């Protein structure tokens, strides 16, 4: 029995190169974690979290559970390749150990077992093993076949667009696709000579023997198989396949409690490498409607890896999180986008010294912070105040002359400038002594929850109204109106509030279903996340969304964000209302007129109020 042949060298060299490189990369990522993250890592390694993470690695990196959820065929394609190959390696190892009786064999030995072991008798249960191995190979080959079809026509995988590949990816892809057909070829040719194959390789071998000189071809075939493996391993670090090892480390670190922030860190870098360029995010992006392409995380992350990131590419995003919600690797694309914007944006050298130093310290249970956008849509503010008074809540309107929450600045990467506003607002809210901070704008909500240090409950008005209903403080009479609800990005995907608005609306009337709701809801097109998008481009996006959401002829298009409302109002034939307005209307209080009927700029507020007084 032989156990070495020079043809294993390409495989071995590639394999060693890859192992060394992965160790180097992992060490680099781990060393660059900050102190807090390092402590989390050390604790995590010794806790149960380690086991949970292992379980998730199995489910995601091998079975690709989330990919299955996105599309079963796509899931099967990834699973058959990853899990099939993994099982081939495991079984091959078992088999080779049974054969040699040793605990450790050279890494190439199980891979090329059929070349080295041609006498069946030397391995127990040989028939079972070899048929199982053939089955697994068939499974992997079916995955390769599907991948080929996906490259040619991605539609059957539920994808309108698939990732555009560059050279490194192409080399890796071709070598990966070649590995398994070459394995089949080499094993079949050997089986034709030695009859050591399973149900597939044996028959393919017989078939090939009919017209090919199998004894001359089998040895070169093993060389080719080894070269394709080696070439693939060398290509991995320069291609998207680096996501395989990166994702494993990512899953462990996440389980240990490490998350991305608005500052680009070693962890962000790891997330970038974990992107498999699967392309699931591409179709999710509404910027295609505005004829902007190659901006999605797929390409954004690739540009980071290739160090060719531009300011324009970084800016080309609404920060709507549609892609994030769909990403099977759950990469926090928005945080990375903001972090990268910080490196491109010119400093504002902001001067906010004009902000008042002292705040009125009127005590109240609930501090109501309307926010800039709500001041621009006074009907929402009035409705909210009507509801608070109807429910006899002790509230304090803290931003009648208020300032911005800071999130619009943060979204452009200007974190320091935003901090000045954050500190001001923090002092204002703490001064009010309130237990609840009530907000009408989801953009503010997100900022207050993520970037402020406040020890009080921070609630959007949809949550608050829902709670008033639950505690029987607010009764909503059942109605017959038909509502279409639009989940604002920052409220739904951004803050995970999906059920409360639905609960309120189902009390007040009937809610129509949409394909584009909850995680899959649209961005209204008015997002502050994209600064250079033109009005014309925004209009195209908004019109598409309004058409989709009003196609069931609802009585009103309801949303829970002043910016969404403002954006829709220009284009919708159906009245657009905030959920607070609906509630205020049905409890027959407050203004029944929406902004739509008023003059919508802020000068209009006064006109409207005067009219009412007459």
């Amino acid at each position, binding site marked *: 029995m032989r156990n070495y042949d020079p043809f294993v060298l390409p495989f071995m060299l590639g394999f060693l190169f890859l192992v060394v490189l992965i160790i180097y990369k992992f060490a680099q990522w781990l060393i660059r974690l900050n102190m807090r993250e390092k402590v989390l890592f050390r604790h995590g390694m010794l806790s149960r979290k380690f086991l949970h993470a292992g379980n998730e690695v199995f489910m995601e990196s091998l079975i690709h559970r989330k990919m299955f959820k996105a599309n079963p065929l796509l899931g099967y394609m990834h699973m058959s390749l990853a899990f099939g190959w993994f099982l081939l390696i495991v079984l091959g190892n078992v088999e080779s150990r049974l054969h040699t009786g040793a605990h450790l064999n050279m890494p190439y030995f199980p891979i090329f077992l059929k070349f080295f072991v041609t006498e069946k008798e030397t391995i127990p249960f040989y028939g079972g093993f070899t048929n199982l191995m053939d089955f697994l190979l068939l499974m992997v080959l079916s995955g390769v076949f599907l991948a080929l079809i996906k490259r040619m026509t991605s539609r059957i995988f539920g994808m309108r667009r698939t990732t555009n590949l560059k050279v490194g990816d192409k080399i890796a892809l071709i070598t990966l696709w070649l590995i398994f057909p070459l394995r089949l070829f080499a094993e079949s040719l050997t089986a034709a000579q030695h009859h050591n194959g399973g149900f597939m390789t044996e028959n393919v071998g017989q078939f090939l023997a009919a017209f090919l000189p199998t004894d001359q071809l089998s040895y070169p075939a093993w060389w080719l198989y080894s070269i394709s493996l080696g070439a693939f391993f060398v290509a991995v670090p320069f291609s998207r396949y680096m996501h395989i090892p990166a994702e494993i480390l990512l899953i462990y670190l996440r389980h240990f409690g490490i998350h991305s922030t608005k500052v680009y860190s070693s962890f962000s870098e790891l997330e970038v490498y974990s992107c498999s360029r699967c392309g699931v995010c591409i179709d999710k992006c509404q910027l295609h409607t505005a004829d902007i392409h190659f901006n999605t995380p797929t390409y954004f992350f690739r540009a980071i890896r290739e160090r060719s990131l531009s300011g324009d590419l970084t800016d080309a995003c609404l920060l709507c999180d549609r892609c994030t919600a769909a990403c099977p690797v759950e990469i926090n694309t928005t945080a990375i986008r903001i972090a990268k914007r910080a490196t491109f944006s010119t400093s*504002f050298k902001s*001067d906010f010294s004009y902000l008042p130093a002292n705040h009125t310290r009127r005590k109240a249970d609930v501090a109501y912070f309307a926010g*800039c956008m709500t001041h621009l849509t006074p009907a929402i503010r009035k409705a909210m105040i009507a509801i608070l008074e109807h429910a006899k809540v002790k509230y304090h309107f803290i931003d009648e*002359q*208020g*300032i911005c929450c800071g999130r619009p600045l943060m979204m452009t990467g200007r974190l320091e400038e935003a901090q000045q506003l954050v500190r001001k607002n923090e002092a204002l809210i703490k001064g009010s002594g309130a237990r609840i901070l009530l907000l009408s704008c989801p953009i503010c909500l997100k900022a207050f929850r993520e970037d402020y240090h406040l020890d009080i409950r921070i609630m959007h008005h949809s949550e608050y109204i829902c709670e008033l209903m639950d505690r029987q403080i607010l009764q909503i009479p059942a109605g017959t109106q038909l509502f279409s609800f639009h989940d604002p990005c920052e409220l739904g995907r951004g803050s995970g509030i999906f059920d409360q608005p639905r609960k309120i609306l189902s009390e007040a009337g009937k809610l129509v279903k949409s394909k584009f709701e909850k995680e899959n809801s649209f961005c209204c097109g008015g997002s502050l996340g994209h600064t250079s998008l033109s009005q014309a481009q925004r209009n195209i996006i908004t019109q598409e969304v309004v058409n989709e959401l009003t196609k069931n002829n609802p009585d009103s298009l309801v949303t829970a964000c002043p910016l969404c409302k403002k954006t829709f109002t220009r284009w919708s034939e159906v009245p657009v209302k905030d959920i607070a307005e609906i509630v205020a209307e049905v409890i027959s209080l407050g203004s029944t007129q929406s902004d739509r009927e008023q003059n919508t700029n802020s000068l209009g507020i006064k006109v409207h109020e005067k009219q009412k007084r007459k």
Partner: protein
Amino acid sequence: MKKDKWGYGIHPDRQIDLDNANLSLLELVRQSEPSYNLCIACGSCAATCTAGNLTTISLRRINIYLQRGMIKELREEIRRCMLCGKCYLACPRGVNTRHVIIAIHEALKATGYEEL
């Protein structure tokens, strides 16, 4: 003539000579945000401004400073903006005001006028 003697003085010269005005910033802003050219100086942006509630800032005036090359005044005023975006939603002409503000900051940096 001395002011303390007579109780009045001559106003500083407020004439703006557009032939000598520094319009380099204006050109840069126009290039980077073409919708700037749509501005009709209506003042809706200034009327709705969040910062404008608390201090003197007016995007309409900033636009005028830019067109007259009054860089010092421009620089002082634009730093008070919070980038909240209210002005953008109020503008009847669809001027991408937030991007105009960013473009002005970028132009200040590119021309080396950002330092006081």
